[in-house]
């Protein structure tokens, strides 16, 4: 679940200054998501795979993260094959399987997986705080940054709380919601958690004010640009431009 758990490894991707990395990878992510030209697509797939290998991130970790888009593709492929239109592959009465559906599904798969690999390179090789600071450098409003930081912390807290409440409830015979049968118990658990979180937010705010909080989230982190950062970013930005140009032709 923690994308940045291997942020402490050493690799050319890890040592890449977070701001330059963001500048290089964000455009490539969008290019990869929107590209239509098959050569451009293969380019993005190649680059993203190469970067993950260079980053030395554990394969198991990477595969775990790819599960998400993978399931989506598994579900969408039959849908696309049955509905995309175009040339028939096979037909039974009203139901048709389209050749183009398979092609579209393959394209979607490559896109989704490439984008996810680039995403892993971006957020998996830098600590989340640094990534946030990099976004602040690009003018993400500090109040939004503060919101990200605190939400991140409290997500873990509520996993714990919810886990404890569900355990306590299960010990009293509760089962996870099936249809509308267990609605009442589920609602009770949610409302309790909701009210507790609201009351906690008031205490947290008080704790923050007592430490001088005025809206920004201060950190000590300082960025340092190196020549390698500029080179890596220039390379990838050029690649993005090239792929877009290829697509436009």
């Amino acid at each position, binding site marked *: *679940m*923690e*994308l940045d758990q291997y942020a402490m490894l050493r690799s050319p991707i890890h040592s890449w200054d977070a701001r330059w990395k963001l500048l290089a990878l964000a455009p490539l*992510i*969008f290019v*990869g*998501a*929107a590209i239509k030209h098959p050569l451009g697509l293969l380019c993005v797939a190649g680059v993203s795979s190469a970067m993950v290998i260079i980053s030395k991130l554990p394969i198991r970790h990477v595969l775990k*993260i790819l599960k*998400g*888009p993978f399931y989506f593709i598994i579900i969408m492929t039959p*849908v*696309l094959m049955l*509905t*995309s*239109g*175009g040339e028939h592959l096979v037909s039974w009465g009203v139901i048709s399987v389209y050749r183009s*559906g398979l092609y579209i599904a393959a*394209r*979607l798969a490559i896109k*989704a997986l490439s*984008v*996810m690999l680039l*995403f892993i390179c971006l957020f998996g090789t830098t600590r*989340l705080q640094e990534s946030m600071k990099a976004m602040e450098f690009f003018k993400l*409003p500090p*109040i*939004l940054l*503060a*919101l990200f*930081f*605190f*939400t*991140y*912390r*409290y*997500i873990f*807290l*509520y*996993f714990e709380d*919810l886990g404890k409440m569900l355990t306590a409830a299960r010990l009293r015979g509760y089962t*996870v919601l*099936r*249809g*509308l049968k267990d609605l*009442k118990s*589920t*609602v009770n658990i*949610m*409302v309790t*958690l*909701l*009210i507790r*979180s*609201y009351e906690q*937010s*008031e205490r*947290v*705010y008080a704790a923050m004010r007592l430490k001088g909080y005025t*809206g920004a989230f201060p950190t000590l982190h300082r960025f340092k640009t190196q020549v390698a950062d500029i080179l890596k970013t220039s390379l990838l930005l050029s690649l993005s431009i090239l792929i877009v140009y290829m697509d436009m032709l």
Partner: protein
Amino acid sequence: MHIPDGVLDIKIIAGGFTAAAGLTALALKKVKHDDIPRLAVMGAFFFVSSLIHFKVGITSVHLTFIGLMGIILGIPSTLAILTGLFFQAVMFQHGGISTLGINTIIFGLPALLVYGAFLPLAKRWKGRPFCLSLAGSILAGLTILIAAGLILVIIRFSGDEFTGVAFVFSAAHGMLAFVEGAITFFILRRLLKIKPEMLYAYKSSPPESTG
């Protein structure tokens, strides 16, 4: 539920981010720094709760709580939704990264509409929890249908070949609308009883709690 990467046209992706930036800017105008812990804590709650899957027939769906967020957080709900979507992408690879902007619009706009519709009702029906809960639940169900409609339109714009995909998404949302409305009704009823000041409409002048 969210639109994943790879489906949308570049123009729509860009448009989505532009519109989301606008919505975010609007929300930032309304937010004060003392709202941040509340938004963060509530945003985290919604994030975690929306991971609760349950079976409806042969499929399983998860709640979005978009309507409830609009009612509780008001205009700043956009920020909590954006944050929730971001972390769903980062931590669970739910939804897309390139589609963060468009997904924020799909879920953020209905939340704002719910808040806008709920506000006058909250004033008129102060102290009438049943009416308010019913209104809130209907609005919450509607947010899902509006979101489903938006998804359908947006995906269709990206190409005919995705029509089937769009319909699958929308159908799933349709089923969700009813369940979400029902759960919102019960949650609102309890909240109005125990802690009505949690609702954005009652932040400074809550009705008497009867709990």
